[in-house]
């Protein structure tokens, strides 16, 4: 079991800056994030977009800000469980928490800081009836191991890079026995090279392109056997296959945190602005995921929240110690 002082759920800008502020108080942190890399929305959604309201940075690219926050946190040697989703929480007899991830990693600490931003990024599910019934029974939203599809008839939906790249990969490497690519439009918005490859493979009869079309239904006894496909200006199609992989990007969901007994208002966690504590002592929420009167979802405000929050977290661990604010300019940064 990993032991630390603060478990930070969410490795976005707010979570990363928490490591720094906690470090100044000699508190250790461990970050969990469902995404495989740190940075949250900034790296996942808009790494190349400029941000103009970080004090002292008239303009900074989101990805660059994350790099700098990682550098700032580095002296305090944070632990990372990336690509893992915080799933379960339990209280221990000694008034601490154990958070377990979906991969079974267990982390124990006095405090939890939920800096989950918009929530966990999960695959966007198409609105098809009985979809859930076929999940893992032929419907997969992510291709984890392409060899899973060996000699299978695979239908991929979507027009973006992941749909194109997987269609090409499963075809070129002769993994799947059939590859169909269903897309709502005739044009593809993926990388031009990938689009060209798909078109070439389609011309060679190796990828079956079904454009101006949408999967609208699944049929099968306990597993995917056929897909009903609606086509513009054409007869609907009943396509026999073994797998359907809808690739429509990711969207954020609050996820398991919603079931932790926290006060939640409109998908955000209600906090006390004194120290950004939730209704459960020892659990704090900072950044975009919290709400309070006057809340603004700004990175800048999240940094402030993180700074005040760690003071309260310190008090929970060391109730008898007095904290004196020390300026980094005077003291420097004493890493671990």
């Amino acid at each position, binding site marked *: 079991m990993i032991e630390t002082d603060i478990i930070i759920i969410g490795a976005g800008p707010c979570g990363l800056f928490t490591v720094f502020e906690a470090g100044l108080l000699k508190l250790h942190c461990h970050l969990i994030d469902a995404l495989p890399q740190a940075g949250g929305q900034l790296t996942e*959604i*808009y790494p190349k977009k400029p941000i103009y309201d970080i004090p002292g940075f008239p303009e900074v690219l989101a990805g660059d800000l994350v790099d700098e926050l990682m550098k700032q946190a580095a002296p305090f040697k944070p632990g990372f469980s990336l690509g893992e989703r915080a799933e379960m929480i339990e209280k221990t007899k000694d008034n601490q928490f154990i958070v377990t991830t979906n991969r079974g990693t267990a982390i124990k600490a006095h405090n939890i800081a939920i800096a989950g931003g918009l929530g966990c990024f999960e695959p*966007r599910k198409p*609105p098809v009836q009985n979809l859930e019934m076929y999940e893992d029974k032929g419907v997969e939203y992510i291709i984890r191991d392409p060899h899973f599809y060996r000699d299978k008839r695979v239908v991929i939906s979507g027009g*973006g890079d992941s749909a194109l790249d997987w269609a090409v990969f499963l075809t070129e490497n002769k993994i799947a026995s059939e590859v169909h690519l269903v897309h*709502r439009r005739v044009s593809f*918005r993926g990388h031009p090279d990938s689009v060209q490859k798909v078109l070439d493979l389609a011309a060679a009869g190796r990828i079956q392109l079904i454009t101006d079309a949408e999967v609208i239904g699944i049929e099968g006894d306990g597993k995917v056997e056929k897909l009903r496909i609606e086509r513009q200006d054409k007869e609907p199609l009943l396509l026999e296959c073994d797998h359907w992989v809808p690739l429509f990007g990711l*969207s954020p969901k609050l996820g398991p945190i919603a079931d932790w007994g926290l006060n939640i208002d409109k998908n955000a966690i209600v906090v006390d602005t004194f120290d950004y504590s939730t209704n459960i002592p020892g659990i704090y929420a900072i950044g975009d995921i919290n709400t309070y009167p006057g809340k603004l*979802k700004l990175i800048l405000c999240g940094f402030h929240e993180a700074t005040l929050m760690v003071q309260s977290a310190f008090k929970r661990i060391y109730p008898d110690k007095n904290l004196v604010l020390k300026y980094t300019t005077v003291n420097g940064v004493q890493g671990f």
Partner: protein
Amino acid sequence: MGMIKITVIDRQGAAHQLDAPTDMNMNMMELCKSYELPVEGTCGGMAMCASCHMYIESAHPLPEKSEDEENMLDQAFFVKLNSRLGCQLHLADDMEGLTVRLAEVGE
């Protein structure tokens, strides 16, 4: 001056007449949010989530979709020919009387 009327039909079919300022650099997503209509605007207006997906139901000439908006609508569900992302529609005086309908939200 600087104020137009916009009608937003919610997912239950109720029409809301909104006073929309055109001098505050607001878009349709923000307008709906400011009236607490059920529009999430998750990505904050970067055309990256489609949670402000709406259908244009009046014949107003609107600016062409940008590449970003096209790309996002490409991944959204319940898309029709009159689909737009509210966050990409900046309120302007020539939108007086515009009528939109909020699109269904998927999971």
